[in-house]
């Protein structure tokens, strides 16, 4: 099933997996103003669809994502000023993290991931990549500052590698194999098999309790916001939140009966309200 109401994205459902694809291959999937707006709704649509248990995010063509659409900036007479207010107010809505998506999100990096493309690497739960994927951050090479996407990555992986990309700019590319060594991503697959593997991985994750995964995800992402002891105190609330939930009985019962568990339907949520 494919949703045709998006111009810059494709949304698809394959079994329990919702797919979100950047769909401007002719522009290396650069994010223009239209895509930026469509992303906000696309994340919420998939997160609110009860048939979707896990979301896979990738791109059409040879690039995953190359950041803000420079051609549009140079020609529309407004330039980066268009984004000043949302950036100054830290009011962004184009990643799963910005939109408080409760479901697991797998980013499958299908090629070049440059500059602003790191937003979706930093803000995903699981990241895999094609063996020909390349990572680099050209911001400083064109006189721009990289901030949120690099800061997100700094929290999640060794500092030096992120700083090096930020300072070297367009003059060096990190291959997928190095990204895996560093724990920026967890798996590298032959390019032709990327989508098959992403679907398979998503279906595997979809076997787990949706309620337990949502709470685990909140505990882990919450930990990026605070010190260790405080993070554990907040994490305790998430652990306790599923006590008495039907999945707590169903999980062990299915295990004892050697069958796949039948999890409760995840509660529908409004991303904006959380």
């Amino acid at each position: 099933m494919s949703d045709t109401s998006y111009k810059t994205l494709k949304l698809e459902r394959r079994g329990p997996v919702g797919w979100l694809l950047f769909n401007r291959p002719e522009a290396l999937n650069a994010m223009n103003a239209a895509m930026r707006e469509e992303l906000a709704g696309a994340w919420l649509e998939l997160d609110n669809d009860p048939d979707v248990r896990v979301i896979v995010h990738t791109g059409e063509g040879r690039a995953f994502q190359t950041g803000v659409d420079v051609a549009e900036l140079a020609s529309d007479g407004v330039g980066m000023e268009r984004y000043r207010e949302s950036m100054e107010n830290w009011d962004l809505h184009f990643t799963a993290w910005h939109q408080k998506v409760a479901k697991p999100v797998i980013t499958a990096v299908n090629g070049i991931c440059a500059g602003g493309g790191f937003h979706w690497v930093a803000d995903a739960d699981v990241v895999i990549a094609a063996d020909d994927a390349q990572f680099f951050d050209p911001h400083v090479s064109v006189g721009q500052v990289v901030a949120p996407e690099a800061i997100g990555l700094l929290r999640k992986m060794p500092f030096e590698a992120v700083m090096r990309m930020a300072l070297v700019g367009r003059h060096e590319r990190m291959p997928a194999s190095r990204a895996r060594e560093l724990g920026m991503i967890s798996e590298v697959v032959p390019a032709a098999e990327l989508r098959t593997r992403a679907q398979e991985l998503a279906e595997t994750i979809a076997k787990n309790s949706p309620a337990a995964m949502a709470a685990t995800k909140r505990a882990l992402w919450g930990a990026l916001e605070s010190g260790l002891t405080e993070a554990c105190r907040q994490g305790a609330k998430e652990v306790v939140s599923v006590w008495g939930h039907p999945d707590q009985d169903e999980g062990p019962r299915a295990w004892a009966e050697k069958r796949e568990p039948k999890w409760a339907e995840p509660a529908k949520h409004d991303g904006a309200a959380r």
Partner: protein
Amino acid sequence: MSYAGLAVEREGPVGWLIFDRPKVGNAMDAAMLADLPKAWRELDEDPSVRVIVNTGNGPSFQTGLDVRQLAKDKDALREQSRRTKRAELLITAWHNKVATPVIAAVNGTCAGGGLHFVADADIVIAASDAVFCDPHVSVGQVSAFELIGLARRAAFEPTARMGLIGRHEKLPAERARQLGIVSEVVPPAELRDTARSLAGKIALNPPDEVRHIKQLLWRALEDPA
């Protein structure tokens, strides 16, 4: 002193804290939960012990709570639930404010709550056949403390992947080394010798300074970053 489900031994400057319920994957039952704080304290308060090595007997390192036993022991389960709610667990060296350096020597399967002892050790080494996984979400449970601790000391993405994929995937020892979750992988038969030798090197350093540095580094994890 002797403890339930734990072997505590001294060997030169090394204090050994060994999970000893090999028939049940060294899972923590009510008696082991009650004795863990006492065993950590005994070794930490012994001036002859310069380094504590934590490992397991049998094919597993540690596989978390012994749910079967605890289901029959309502009082112990209630007590453990109370501590979980308040984030006041008392099972690891970190929980028990152990000042002596702690080496975890992961001798086999480390699953679910077993990850506490990896997240909360100072140094972690592993046997080449050790595996790490977190099955919580596959049985309808939430994983929090273990992964929060791990994500502070290693890359976030592989930690989140372990938490979300549950029992369907295991992280091998060599990948854990590459990610910096463990620093050394050795053949299974050499694990305890390697741990003893590493502990001996740490024991050569001045104990007060070693404890001070340990305290400083752990305190740095309390900053919101």
